[in-house]
């Protein structure tokens, strides 16, 4: 029986791996910072931002590729990154809040 259980566990694990490999990521806005400030994801990944502050924030890329509306407390915003690159963004309400999404193929 033992080898069978192990096989089951491995099977579950092998299904779980592709899901984790999708590289979707979460960034929160808290105390006037993006956290984590710099993330790296694979092409095709979706990043979700959530504002935990009582003050609204936005997610606005410097090159204009993506821009959220003003997010009130607990509001979220998502963007899917298809192309490799380094995407710098700020909160347009508090431009001192700066962060980066790096999109590249994982090896």
């Amino acid at each position, binding site marked *: 029986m033992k080898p069978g259980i192990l096989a089951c566990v491995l099977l579950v694990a092998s299904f779980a791996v592709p899901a984790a490999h999708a590289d979707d990521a979460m960034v929160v806005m808290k105390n006037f910072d993006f956290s984590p400030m710099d993330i790296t994801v694979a092409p095709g990944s979706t990043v979700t931002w959530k504002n935990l502050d009582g003050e609204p924030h936005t997610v*606005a890329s410097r090159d204009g590729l993506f821009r959220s509306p003003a997010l009130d407390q607990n509001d979220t915003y998502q963007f899917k990154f298809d192309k490799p690159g380094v995407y710098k963004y700020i909160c347009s309400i508090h*431009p001192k809040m700066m962060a980066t999404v790096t999109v590249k193929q994982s090896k």
Partner: protein
Amino acid sequence: MTDATNRRDALKCLGVGAGTLFTLQGGVFSAFDLAEAQADMGTPLFLQISDTHIGFNKDANPDVAGTLNRTIDLVNAMPKQPALVLHTGDVSHLSRASEFDTANQLLSRLKVSELHVVPGEHDVTDGPGAEFFARFGKPSNNRGYYSFDSQGVHFVALVNVMNFKANGLGGLGDDQMAWLKDDLAGRSASQPIVVFAHMPLWTIYEPWGWGTGEGDEIADLLRRFGSVTVLNGHIHQIVQKVEGNILFHTARSTAYPQPQAGSGPGPGPLLVPADQLPGMLGITTAMARKKKLSLTDATLA
């Protein structure tokens, strides 16, 4: 006979009402002299309202419409109404159409009909500021920055929330700076100047972005004038600085206070006991005095 009496008599002769524009070049009275005479009789040159943040509903002030209404009551109860009101931005909290509509509806109760508005960063969170400019873009042809003369004073409205600097300070951008240079060039140094924008035009606290990247350049352009008043909101508290003939002044909000520079994690709403809130909200009044402007801050308390 005092100066004031002279001016009062002059006014009687001329039959001047508030808001009438006079420029008697080389004559006895300048328009600003008349504004001073109006001030002697209690009429402000203008009022400043700022940071109404309609749409905000958190603990720091669950009723920002209510406090704006009280502000308007305060203004309307003044015995003498000024010719105009300046709103230095953050009309709305989240740039939503419904917030602007509510703000407009409330502000329309002001007895003073001439209202000049510059955008705050909360008003243009969509980028181009579509909702803001749909309502307030007309005087500037949708650029946001423009100038006009009233009561002998040259007023300059600037936008420093749509071209942020990499370090987080506000910015005007090259086009607006070129326009400003042109607007001030050749203007008489004796004409009082009022510049108003949302974010501070001098650096109050760089880590929180409380300043404007071109601040020094702007001050250089203004230095030659005999009387300059630079007004802003944004930081929801009064901070003032005098540099030569330039008076820098930030107004209170009508919605909620913010912490002092560097106190706490960031410039968010400051929660204070409910009975203290009215004392931290208010407006600024400008009077024409001795060729300059004198500012007074009043609270809702």
